[in-house]
């Protein structure tokens, strides 16, 4: 099996290895989210993606490869798109059909974490004004564990103030990073 094939983690994931699932996630999340782009107006793609990933974990022991790479990822894409359609219907939003054709899967090689990018982001974070810096740090450090009103309360902010500070922080960060030659919009390319 090619080392760039995300299915190299499949056997361990199927055996219940959450660390292997984490490695798979580090490469699978981005193409799966991209595959939900056409549902953005009718479904909360973050919720759909999280639910799809939980289902991938549950069905992985029954995933049988077909000889092509990224079998679990292709299965995840199918699950995510079908979920987007069904949840949009449940919320009485007009869903687009998932269709028979899956979008092209563009999976990057095994990530080589770029310390220079991390350092540049950290430097830009350090330059943020106090309140926006505290707000975005709370959001980043919490990694989706708590709702915003709890994070805001911990910082002694009203929820709307907290959200305004994060928006300001993200805008300033993006500007700082652009000046450093790092464009997060490339993620959307």
């Amino acid at each position, binding site marked *: 099996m090619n080392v760039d094939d995300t299915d190299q983690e499949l056997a361990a994931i199927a055996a219940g290895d959450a660390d292997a699932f984490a490695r798979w*996630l580090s490469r699978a999340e981005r193409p799966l989210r991209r595959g939900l782009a056409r549902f953005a107006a009718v479904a909360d793609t973050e919720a759909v993606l999280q639910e799809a990933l939980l289902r991938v974990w549950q069905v992985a022991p029954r995933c049988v490869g077909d000889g092509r790479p990224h079998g679990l990822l292709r299965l995840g894409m199918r699950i995510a798109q079908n979920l987007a359609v069904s949840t949009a219907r449940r919320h009485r939003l007009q869903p687009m059909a998932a269709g028979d054709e899956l979008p092209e899967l563009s999976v990057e090689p095994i990530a080589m974490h770029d310390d220079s990018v991390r350092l540049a982001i950290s430097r830009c974070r350090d330059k943020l004004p106090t309140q926006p810096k505290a707000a975005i740090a709370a959001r980043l450090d919490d990694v989706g564990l708590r*709702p915003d009103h709890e994070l805001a309360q911990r910082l002694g902010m009203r929820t709307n103030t907290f959200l305004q500070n994060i928006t300001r922080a993200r805008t300033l960060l993006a500007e700082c990073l652009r000046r450093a030659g790092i464009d997060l919009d490339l993620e959307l390319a």
Partner: protein
Amino acid sequence: MNADRDLLVEAAISAHRRLDPAGEVQFHPAFHDLDAAGREVLYAATRQQRALERALARDGLSATAHAVLRRVRASST
């Protein structure tokens, strides 16, 4: 972009999602208050935010991945 929409988008960028009684991940409440254009803005901004999170994390995992892994690990114990 207007201020109200900014707040709704910012709220829904969070990876925090509640589960419904059946244990399924729920839509963020703010999503329902956004119009179609706002939801497209949300999608793009979320992708950018997750890219930032992955770039910052030594394990390359975003808040989405951490949220999923917490539930996976909780269900395994």
